């Protein structure tokens, strides 16, 4: 397989599979609540419909309102392509790509935030303020998690860092990264994707004024981000790089589905937190990652 074909194949897999995850989560939530729920493929239908729809733009907006979602979508796709798949490695892999990964996620946040502020709405302002503030703690947790993996593997490249398991601190790391996953993807208990009150939203309120293809880009990007975090969590904990390619892919799919199911269960069983408690929970995630780092540091080979 040529390099270009390899990249295209991975790209297709990431882009096509990503909208499945929110469907699975919603199905789990419906199942716990005793409802039938929307079809698993609902997001695909939504995206197809939005892509064909016209756009209503606020009279206040600049071109950034349309360009921001495109930039964010590209940044998230780039971050996805930096993640390895078992022994096959990543589409792009180089020394230091772990940090490019973190900053691509930040770039996506930056573009979406500016596109949201562009409307001049106080609701959007609130959402952006919450998003960028909580991301400070989430970023600290991700850096601590990456340092843990770096201590484990002695490398700063995701392909090598994610190959072995996280060792003795795996449970701590998994708990910490799961907290970050919930926060960064606006799930309960940090945010409620189903809420109907603008005042209490984080992510949803940032996209209130988007419509049509830009909204499709945002929704698809959000599902991509969820998949990215689920894959990162699975690969950080499991030694997928040590398995043969097919079992590794099987294990990856199974664990990503497991993450989705657990997310759905968390959403069904927990209430969302008051905003003043959100930083505490995120700090807990950061501390869990930091403890995982200390475990790795103590147990690591010099």
């Amino acid at each position, binding site marked *: 397989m040529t390099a270009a074909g390899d990249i295209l194949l991975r790209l297709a897999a990431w882009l096509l599979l990503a909208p499945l995850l929110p469907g699975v989560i919603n199905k789990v939530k419906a199942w716990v609540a005793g409802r039938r729920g929307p079809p698993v493929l609902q997001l695909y239908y939504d995206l197809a419909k939005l892509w064909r*729809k*016209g*756009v*209503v*733009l*606020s*009279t*206040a907006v*600049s071109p*950034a309102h*349309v*360009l921001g979602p*495109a*930039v964010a979508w*590209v*940044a998230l796709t*780039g971050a996805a392509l930096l993640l390895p798949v078992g022994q096959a490695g990543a589409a792009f892999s*180089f*020394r*230091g790509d772990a*940090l*490019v990964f973190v*900053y691509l996620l*930040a*770039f996506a946040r*930056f573009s979406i*935030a*500016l596109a949201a*502020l562009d*409307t*001049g*709405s*106080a*609701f*959007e*302002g609130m959402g*952006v*303020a919450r998003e*960028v*503030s909580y*991301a*400070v703690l*989430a*970023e*600290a947790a*991700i*850096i*601590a998690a990456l*340092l843990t993996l*770096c*201590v484990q*593997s002695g490398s*700063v490249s995701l392909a090598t860092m994610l190959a072995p398991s996280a060792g003795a601190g795996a449970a701590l790391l998994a708990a910490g990264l799961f907290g970050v996953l919930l926060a960064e993807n606006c799930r309960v208990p940090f945010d409620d994707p189903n809420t109907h009150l603008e005042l209490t939203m984080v992510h949803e309120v940032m996209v*209130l*004024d988007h419509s*049509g*293809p*830009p909204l499709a880009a945002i929704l698809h990007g959000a599902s991509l981000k969820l998949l990215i975090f689920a894959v990162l969590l699975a690969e950080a904990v499991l030694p997928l790089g040590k398995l043969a390619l097919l079992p590794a892919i099987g294990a990856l799919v199974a664990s990503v589905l497991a993450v989705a199911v657990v997310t759905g269960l968390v959403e069904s069983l927990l209430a969302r937190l008051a905003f003043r408690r959100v930083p505490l929970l995120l700090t807990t995630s950061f501390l869990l990652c930091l403890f995982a780092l200390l475990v790795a*540091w103590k147990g690591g080979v*010099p």
Partner: protein
Amino acid sequence: MTPGWWLLIAGAGLVAGILGAFNSPRLWLAATLTGAGAAFAAAVEMLAGGMTWDWRPAFVIGGEALHLQLDGLSAFFLILLAVLGGAGTLYSSGYWSDKAHPDSAPPGRAWWNGLLLNMGFVLVCANGLHFLIAWEIFTVCAYFLITRERQRPAARAAGWLYLASSHVAMMFLFAFFALLAARTGSWELGPLRDHAGLAPLFWLALIGFGLKAGIFPLHIWLPSAHANAPSHVSAMLSGMALKMGIYGLMRFTGWLPTPHLAGWVVAALGVVSAVLGVAFALGQHDLKRLLAYHSVENIGIILIGLGFAMIAVAHGHAAWGQLALAGALLHVWNHGLFKALLFLGAGSVLHATGTREMSRLGGLWRAMPWTASLFALGATAIAGLPPLNGFVSEWLVYLGLFDAVSAHGSAGIAAILAAVSLGVTGALALACFVKVCGVVFLGLPRRELAEHVHECGWRMRLPMLALGAACVAIGLAPILFWPALAMAAAAWDPALAVALPSAPLVTLGAFHLALAAVVILAAAFLWRRVRHNGVGRAGTWDCGYAAPTPRMQYTAGSFAGIITGWFAWILRPQRHAHLPGDIFPAHADFAEHTPETVLEDVVEPAGSLVLRFSAAVRRLQHGRVQSYIFYLLLGLAALALIAVMGGAK
């Protein structure tokens, strides 16, 4: 031509500019731009050739023979000076024109050239006495530039604070150079790494240069000076004058031995400056003051890199130190470029609207599309986002820190703290620049702006375009600038001359290029799709509220509220609120203000204590002759007592 000839042209151009400053603005512009171009050529010539230029003419200034030297480190800083000097010169010809400022523009041009000339001279001179003289002159030139608008009390106060703290720094530098000269027996500067006895002098240099660089908590002069200076001067102060402090630190940590703790202290100061600098920036409502605090943050990032490089040298030249140093050096350039771009953009906003208060602005992208786009580019760069230059240097520092962690030494624990702090700093800076771009350029105008809000002219736009292009170039092709970095790193420590790992930069550059290309493609694609599907227009969704006004938009203060709440322990924000109370609330208002904690809670109380003590001592001098005679008698008695006691022994 050798660098010497270029430097001669540069000096001659700047001096000719001073002569033309009062009568012929065009001659001044041409001469100063020529001078900046020649200085750029000299530095490039040196960095491309790799030969240190050394010149000892027979001139004697102040009893010391002139000795000029252009090595990798000074050429590296000289390039930045030349670029910012050229950009600021062209910008000021449109921004601070004779027509708008007939009294202050001509002397301003002369002081500007004096500033450039003396900063350049500091970079190339290799004699302690001449270094001090040029340092003092450029400090004073900067004072007169900061107080261009001296009819405003705020500008006078800012200038005074700058002058006072610069001279406190000067005292430490006097002590540093004098002790250095006393211990080596000569004012000549050069590598003296074997003289272990010189190590304690580092602390004097740290305070002296640190005050100039604006390290937290020595940054007290920085916010008000940057806010009140004309914007091209703020750009030069932040882009270059702070870097002179960094140059001093790098120069003398490279040339002199350092104490055991030096690297740790520098790295710790870097972490504190980075995190608290950006926290204070979030609390600001004044656009230029906010940018000034971001200088503290970026100086912190540079110091983290430098500190870990020093720790690495103490640990037997570990490879991670080279990466950290390369990151610090590149960040010197990067911060100079994007911060100058942002200050020039802020200057255009100020020029067009007449206010630096962010709460009065909004929606400027309509009137000023160029300024808004270039400011957004600078904001992306300073937030350290790929694919621009700020990310490249932060990435190099990160790589150094991660390698230090995986090397598992005693430096590893410190590197963990530094890496997490750097991550937090990056996320805070992102929040801050989302706030600035959103509040100033997006949305709707918060107040009725004057009719004359306009895009800036080409003389102001061209320098911003050039600086923006430099940011993009370093981001997309970092490898092109690697030889200059390697040369500067080798001048800092010759042991670093070999085996600097440049390979990842090629891949990073390629990835950045691909990312930029795909971003443009995707944006164009989505844009076409939106046009294809058809666009309708409607008001922003406001929950069905009947009478929306632009004043309902989120303000800068409420945007930063969550984060400033986390840092309230040091920011100590002061809130004055009259909340609506009765059944029929009539009047309500809310004001918030972030004080200068270090200045108002530490320096001013200490200063007033000194003043009170002095006032008490002054009571001894009251003009009554009888008491003075009594003092004389007391003194004589004391002397006699000492003489008698001494004689008894």
